[in-house]
């Protein structure tokens, strides 16, 4: 049963992150997930100091706000300071993360948060933190409910906003001329990335969140030329990653989050070499075949 809960949790995080990640990598903002997952730390600490609770909606909300604030700050530095986006991301998130770390150490007595937990999480504890109703009914792990809720929100967001999201991602200039608000969709997406990141990293750790945000979408990108398929394939790869990662961890008796991240990398490597459309192997084969065909055609026409 524990295996089932852990794999389900991993899969929920994987699907949610992969779906959002497809948009992020195509918007050339893959590392914004990295930035947000670190930069929300001060927001979480402040929310925690106010409410004294770890898993409240307030905390999610505070994190989402900090996330949006982070993206605003990145844009501001990029636009006003004329600094490249990646450099602005680097400046912003290291600063905010550092402030968060200082806050944790200053309020160490009051804050039951530590850097290790933020960075690596502990998915293995998921099955033990269950949601018990007053009547004694066991509703299963709390994480499943939180992550399931987030996943539903993301799916609703993507299916409702499919067209504006697609248009602003692919061709913002065109989106603007047909009256779509580019900032609106940018910040909606960023808020959801923030919420997802925060809801997930406490459970699986920031590194696995970043891995899920970037690696399955990048793998799917290599496997298809169709954006809808990219969304589905990356979710599928996310589930495979969570499942196989769990068993790898059991086999090696190692960290579950670490093993999942490794599996994500292995799937990417496979796609990199063997993808039918973009893989190195098939590209070579196709080139060879095209050359041969060219020779044959040349021979017959002469």
């Amino acid at each position, binding site marked *: 049963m524990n295996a089932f809960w852990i794999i389900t949790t991993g899969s929920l995080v994987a699907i949610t992150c992969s779906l959002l990640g497809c948009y992020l990598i*195509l918007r050339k903002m893959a590392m914004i997930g990295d930035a947000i997952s670190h930069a929300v730390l001060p927001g979480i600490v402040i929310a925690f100091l106010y409410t004294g609770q770890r898993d409240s909606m307030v905390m999610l909300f505070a994190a989402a706000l900090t996330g949006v604030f982070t993206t605003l700050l990145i844009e501001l530095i990029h636009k006003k300071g004329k600094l490249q986006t990646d450099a602005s991301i680097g400046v912003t998130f290291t600063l905010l993360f550092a402030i968060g770390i200082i806050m944790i150490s200053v309020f160490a007595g009051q804050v039951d948060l530590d850097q290790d937990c933020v960075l690596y999480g502990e998915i293995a504890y998921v099955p033990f933190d269950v949601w018990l109703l007053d009547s004694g009914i066991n509703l299963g792990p709390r994480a499943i409910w939180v992550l399931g809720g987030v996943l539903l929100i993301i799916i609703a967001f993507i299916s409702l906003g499919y067209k504006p999201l697609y248009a602003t991602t*692919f061709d913002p200039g065109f989106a603007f*001329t*047909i*009256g779509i608000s580019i900032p609106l969709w940018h910040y909606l997406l960023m808020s959801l990335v923030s919420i997802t990141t925060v809801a997930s990293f406490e459970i699986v750790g920031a590194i696995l969140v970043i891995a899920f945000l970037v690696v399955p979408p990048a793998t799917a990108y290599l496997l298809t*030329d169709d*954006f809808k398929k990219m969304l589905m394939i990356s979710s599928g790869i996310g589930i495979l990653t969570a499942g196989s990662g769990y068993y790898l961890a059991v086999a090696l008796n190692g960290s579950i989050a670490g093993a999942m991240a490794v599996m994500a990398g292995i799937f990417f490597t496979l796609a990199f070499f063997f993808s039918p459309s973009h893989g190195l192997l098939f590209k070579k084969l196709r080139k060879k075949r095209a050359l041969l065909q060219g020779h044959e055609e040349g021979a017959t026409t002469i």
Partner: protein
Amino acid sequence: MIKEAKNPVLEIHDLTVTYHKKPVLWDIDLTIPAGSLTGIIGPNGAGKSTLIKTIMGLIKPSSGYSKIFDKPLDEVRKRVSYVPQRGSVDWDFPASVFDVVLMGRYSDAGMFKRIRKADRELAMDALQKVGMEKFSKRQISELSGGQQQRVFLARALAQHADLYFMDEPFAGVDAATENAIIDLLHEMTGKGKTVVVVHHDLQSAIKYFEWILLLNTRLVASGPVTEVFTSELLQKTYGGKLTLLTEIGNLLQREGLPARETK
């Protein structure tokens, strides 16, 4: 020589645009008649693209305003379509030719509604019009430059707008396709739509357009082609570059247009 159009779809008043305090468009006042195929002509850096971008709201002017169908742009966006000079998109995006053209149906179909079969058919129609139906499933990076240009043209056609702005739509497009598209544009203006095209080739401009804007930061001329295409006005637009003017002189002779029409 600035002529008032009788039945204008577009009017621009006192428009000035600056980049970093340097004026790129200076005090432009013009009107464009409904149902015309209009050409915008001028040297590189004359502000042609800037003019269209400003009309489309992509650039904020320092002063002045424009009205489309007698209304501000935001009220009539659905009726206006724009083809940029160079599609500045990521060509490796997982999008097929058809996906791109289908975007032209987004605003008519409703932003939060499903794409209907009718929208797909209209998108396919538009692809056919630019002769690209065979490529509908291709990923967009697997197209030649001219084919990419045609896909963006098809997306604009799929919008079924009433006013089109096309910034050098024929750059890199082969002669046969250019002719086919010009016929298509004439057919559209015949149905009362207005098409404004930035164009560089003076020789074909005479044949294509009914109304011409000559632009070089200032508006040199706006009016019917026969009245605007004088070597004097062209000289003023192109700043008296020798080889070019000789060329235009020859051109005007060949075309039998009055080189210096006196009104």
